[in-house]
C-alpha cells in the first residue's frame, strides 16, 4: 500500500546544499528513527491483516485454525450484513461530506464578509468541531434526540406542536448524518475560509471596475480558485469520515441498519471473534481507501507544488 500513484511535483528539488558536503548517512540519520518506527507500527500490521484474511481463525475455536483460501472474502461479499455495511459507509460518507461542504461553503462566504463580531461568530462556529467526538455523539443521542426530554422535542413542545417523534428509531441514518454534519461543517468552513482569504484581490477589483456582477465574480473568479480547496476538504473529510466509528457506535450502536464498515469489523472481531473475516473486511476497506487516497494525495501534491512556486 505504500506505493501510491501520484503526480510527481515538478519543482520539488531544493538547490543543492551549500558547499560543505555532508555524507549521505549524516543526512539520512535524523530521518531514520521516524521512518523505521512508522514502518514497523503501520505497515507490518497490514501485512499481518493480509495473511490472517486468508486464514480460518475464530478465537473461540482455536484448534480449528488453518488456511482458508478466499473463503473469508467470499463470506464477506455474500454476507448481507457486511454488504449493507459497505453501502452504509458510502451513504454516510457521501452525505456527510457533501452536506457539510455545501454548508461550509455558505458559512465561509458569509465569514469572508466584514461585519460586527466576525471573530466571535467564527469562534462559535468552530466550537462543534472541538467537542470530543464521543462526547458530541452522546450529547446528540441523549440530550438532543431523546424522545421524552430531548431538546428537539422540547422545542417542538414549546412551539406548540403535538408531534414528539423518536428521532433515532424513525430516522437512524439521518440522525447519525446530522450529528456528523454538525461536527464537520466547521472543518470544511475553516479550509474554505483559508482558501477565500488566500484569493488575490486584484482580479476581483479589476472585474468590479469592468462592471462584473457579484454572481459573475463568484462563478468565474472565486469558484475556480476555491475548487482545489473544495477538493481538499472533500477528500480529507472522506478519509476521516470513512473511518468514523464514534458516532455509529454511540448513537445507534450499529443497530437500525446504520452499521458502517469500521463498526462491522469491530463487531466481527471483538464480539464474534471471527478473525479471518474481520481481516478480509479490513483488506477491502484498505483497497477502497487507496482509491480515495490516490485522489487525495494528488490534490495535496498540487497544492504543494503551488506553494513551492
Amino acid at each position, binding site marked *: *500500500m*505504500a506505493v501510491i500513484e501520484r503526480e510527481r*511535483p515538478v519543482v*520539488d528539488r*531544493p538547490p543543492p*546544499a551549500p558547499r560543505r558536503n555532508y555524507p549521505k548517512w549524516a*543526512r539520512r540519520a535524523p530521518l531514520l528513527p*521516524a*521512518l523505521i*518506527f*512508522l514502518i514497523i*507500527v*503501520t*505497515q507490518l*500490521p497490514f501485512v*499481518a*491483516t493480509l495473511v490472517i484474511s486468508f486464514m480460518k481463525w475464530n478465537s473461540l475455536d482455536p484448534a480449528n485454525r488453518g488456511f482458508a483460501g478466499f473463503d473469508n472474502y467470499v463470506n464477506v461479499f455474500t454476507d448481507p450484513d457486511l454488504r449493507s455495511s459497505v453501502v452504509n459507509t458510502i451513504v454516510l460518507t457521501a452525505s456527510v461530506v457533501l452536506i457539510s461542504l455545501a454548508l461550509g461553503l455558505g*458559512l465561509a462566504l458569509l*465569514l469572508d*464578509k466584514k*461585519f*460586527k463580531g*466576525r471573530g466571535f*461568530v467564527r469562534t*462559535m462556529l468552530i*466550537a*462543534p*468541531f472541538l*467537542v*470530543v*467526538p464521543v*462526547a*458530541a455523539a*452522546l*450529547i446528540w443521542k*441523549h*440530550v438532543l434526540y431523546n424522545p421524552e*426530554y430531548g431538546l428537539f422535542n*422540547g*422545542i417542538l*413542545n414549546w412551539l406548540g406542536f403535538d408531534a414528539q417523534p423518536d428521532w433515532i428509531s424513525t430516522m437512524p441514518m439521518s440522525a447519525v448524518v446530522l450529528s456528523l454534519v*454538525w461536527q464537520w461543517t*466547521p472543518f470544511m468552513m475553516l479550509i474554505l475560509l*483559508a482558501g477565500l482569504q488566500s484569493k488575490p484581490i486584484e482580479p476581483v477589483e479589476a472585474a468590479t471596475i469592468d462592471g462584473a456582477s457579484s454572481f459573475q465574480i463568484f462563478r468565474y473568479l472565486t469558484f475556480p480558485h476555491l475548487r482545489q480547496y473544495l477538493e*481538499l476538504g472533500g477528500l*480529507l473529510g472522506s478519509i476521516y469520515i470513512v*473511518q468514523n*466509528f464514534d458516532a455509529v457506535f*454511540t448513537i445507534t*450502536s450499529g443497530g437500525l441498519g446504520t452499521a458502517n464498515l*469500521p463498526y462491522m469489523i*469491530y463487531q466481527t*472481531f*471483538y464480539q464474534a471473534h471471527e478473525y479471518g473475516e474481520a481481516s478480509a473486511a479490513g483488506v477491502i476497506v484498505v483497497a477502497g*481507501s487507496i482509491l*480515495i*487516497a490516490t485522489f487525495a*494525495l494528488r490534490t495535496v501534491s498540487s*497544492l504543494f507544488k503551488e*506553494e513551492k512556486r
Partner: protein
Amino acid sequence: MNPQWIKHGWGVLAWFFGLVFFAPVAWMFLTSLHSESDAATNPPSIAAPLTLDGYAEFFDAGAWPPLINSFSASIGSTIIVLLLAIPAAYALSIKPVEKWTDVLFFFLSTKMMPVVAALLPIYLIAQFSGMLDNISFLTLLYCSMNLPIAVWLMRSFLAEVPKEILEAASIDGAGLVTTLRRVVAPIAMPGIAATALICFIFSWNELLFARVLTGVVAGTAPVYLTGFVTSQGLFLAKVCAAAVVVSLPVLIAGFAAQDKLVQGLSLGAVK
C-alpha cells in the same frame, strides 16, 4: 436596494448560523449546571437554578483515572512524536535527503489508511506481549497515528527558515548545535507548539483503539464516556458535565490555536 442594508443582512445571517451551530454546545454547558430533575423536563427549563451537582457526581464516579490515562497517553505520545518528527522534518527540509518528496508522501500515505484494518493484528500483538490494558502500548499507537501529521507540519514550518540565514550562520562559523539553538529554534517554535496541539487533540479524541485495547486499568476518557451510551433515567446533567470536562482541554487548545488548526488538519496543505 440599499447596499448598507444588504451588508447588515449578511452579518445577521452569519450571526444566526453561528448561534445555531453553537446552540448544542451552549445547551451542553447549561444542562451540565442543572440538577438532574431540571435537566430532564419537557419543555426544557432554561431558567432553572444552577448547581455543580452534575460535576460532583461525575468526579465521584471514578472520573479521575480515565482523565489521567488520557493525559498521559496524549502528552506522552505528543512528546515522543515531536522527538521523532523534528529530526525527520529537518532531514526533509533544511538538509534534505535525496528524494525527500517521496519520503514525505510516504509519511502522508500511511495516514490515509484506515486504522480499523490494522486493529486485529495490533490487538493480537498486545495480547501475546501482555500489553493489553496498558497505557504505554496505547501511547505508542498514538505516536504512529500522529507521526505523519507531525512530520508534514514540522517540515512546512522548518521550510520557512530562510536558506540565507543558515548560510550566513555557517560562514560565521556556527556549529550545528548553535545553528539549531540560535537560528532554527526561534523560527520553528510557534510551529512546534501548533504541531503539539494538533497531536494532543487527535490522541485525546481517539476512541476505537482505546476501546479495543484498554479496559478497567488503562481506559481513557473517551472509553469512560462510552459507559453512558446505554444509560437511562436521570443522568443528563451528569453526562453533560462529563462531556464538558472531557472536551475542555480540546476546546481550550483549539480556541487558542484557531489558525494552526486548519493548517494541522489539512496536513499543512493550507497555510
